């Protein structure tokens, strides 16, 4: 009985640790910026990619597939139908959705009406993603994951305009630690299984997958003639990625190894962004990592620095 009580307490302690809202501010900033950059990156093709008729592929195809799975999955068709009742054309509505998503992303970035902005961003982004599911890739899903947790987390945080100007406060600060823990565990699952499946492919051990990823259109932004000079490094990089991802759930928690793992993972994503041209994918992964495991590192090093130099200022309001 005592043993079970001990484990229960440990589990509660793990799931509900005391936590500041630094991580939430990072997540909010990052996701706000991510959504704005996402919108800007496909601005010229927005209508072309999302049109029901007259675009690249019909949005209706994805929407019908999802409607079979569940009628409750958000999709642009709902908004288009709603706008149709007010006499708006599909093109106008898609433009309105783009502006709404950018605005919601900006509000999220600033922390203005944080909760409403988080819900609106999550809903609109998800509707766009599901309606263009055939054109979506991993980055979109990871953005949805981040927005989902952000929407449920106890907003606003201290860095937001809601806190500073509107004097709005979260009523559930005790859940700050819980939602960060959920994000942390989720990232561990993502990396572990991503790494494990990579370990099963022989191409990661001999480096051929690094080469293939770098010369594969449309990610072949570096000339293969330049890449080939570095071919001896590919096996090292392949093994390094396998170990980094598979080892993530084991080494990211420890105080001694967290800084190394966090830095290496962010460097890996930065390298992916720069060498494969997958800037948004790199950015969302760095944002999720920074929120999950980086926020503590920054505040810890700042506290240590303040302690060393004796310049610590106690924020009484925050305390």
């Amino acid at each position, binding site marked *: 009985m005592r043993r079970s009580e001990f484990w229960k307490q440990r589990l509660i302690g793990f799931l509900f640790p005391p936590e500041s809202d630094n991580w939430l501010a990072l997540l909010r900033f990052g996701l706000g910026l991510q959504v704005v950059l996402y919108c800007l*990156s*496909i601005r*010229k*093709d927005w209508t*072309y*990619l999302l049109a029901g008729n*007259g*675009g*690249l*592929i*019909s949005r209706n*195809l994805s929407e019908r597939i*999802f409607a079979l*799975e*569940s009628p*409750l*999955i958000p999709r642009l068709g709902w908004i288009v139908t709603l706008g149709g009742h007010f006499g708006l054309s599909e093109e106008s509505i898609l433009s309105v959705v783009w502006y709404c998503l950018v605005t919601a992303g900006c509000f999220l970035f600033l922390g203005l009406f944080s909760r409403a902005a988080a819900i609106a961003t999550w809903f609109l982004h*998800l509707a766009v993603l599901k309606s*263009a599911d*055939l*054109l979506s*890739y*991993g980055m979109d*899903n*990871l*953005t*949805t*994951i981040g*927005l*989902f947790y952000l929407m449920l987390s106890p907003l606003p945080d201290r860095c937001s305009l809601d806190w500073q100007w509107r004097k709005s406060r979260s009523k559930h600060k005790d859940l700050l630690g819980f939602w960060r823990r959920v994000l942390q565990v989720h990232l561990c*699952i*993502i*990396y572990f*299984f*991503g790494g494990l*499946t*990579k*370990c*099963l*492919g*022989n*191409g*990661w051990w001999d*480096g*051929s*997958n690094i*080469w*293939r*990823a770098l*010369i*594969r*259109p*449309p*990610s072949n932004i570096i000339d*293969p003639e330049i890449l*080939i000079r570095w*071919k001896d490094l590919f096996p090292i990089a392949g093994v390094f990625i396998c170990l980094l991802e598979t080892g993530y759930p084991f080494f990211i928690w420890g105080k001694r190894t967290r800084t190394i793992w966090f830095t290496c993972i962010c460097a890996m994503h930065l390298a992916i962004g720069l060498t494969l*041209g*997958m800037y*948004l994918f790199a950015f969302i992964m760095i944002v999720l990592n920074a929120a999950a495991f980086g926020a503590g590192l920054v505040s810890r090093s700042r506290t240590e620095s303040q302690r060393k130099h004796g310049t610590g200022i106690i924020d009484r309001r925050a305390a």
Partner: protein
Amino acid sequence: MTYVHLAGIESGYGFFAPNVPGTCKLVFELHYPDGRTETRVPAVSSHASGLRVATLLDKIGRPQYDSLREVIIKMLASAVWREHSDAKMIRAVFGVVTLPTAEEFEHGVRESSEFLYSYDFAFQPDEPKQANP
């Protein structure tokens, strides 16, 4: 089922795993009434949109998209036809790009395309009329 979609957790996390797949390619041959022939690929305005189109092509190259492949390629052909509405027929050639290994590349081997499917779509001036796979 709805929850996993709302939370963004419906798909796996095997990015480029276990191995980096080949990439698919789609080329349209536009046939004009006067006998001219042109080739086009699905065109978008930015690298970010290009990544999405490449994702689409990779998806429809998978076996689970067998039933949808022709429908999607027809939509893509229609998008090309809207830009070239004087074409009477569009042949869509779908294939996979075979990438050389680093060693092969050093010996002068370059990427090549392997034919997988071909579809012919006949068009009328107003709208796509019929598909002849």
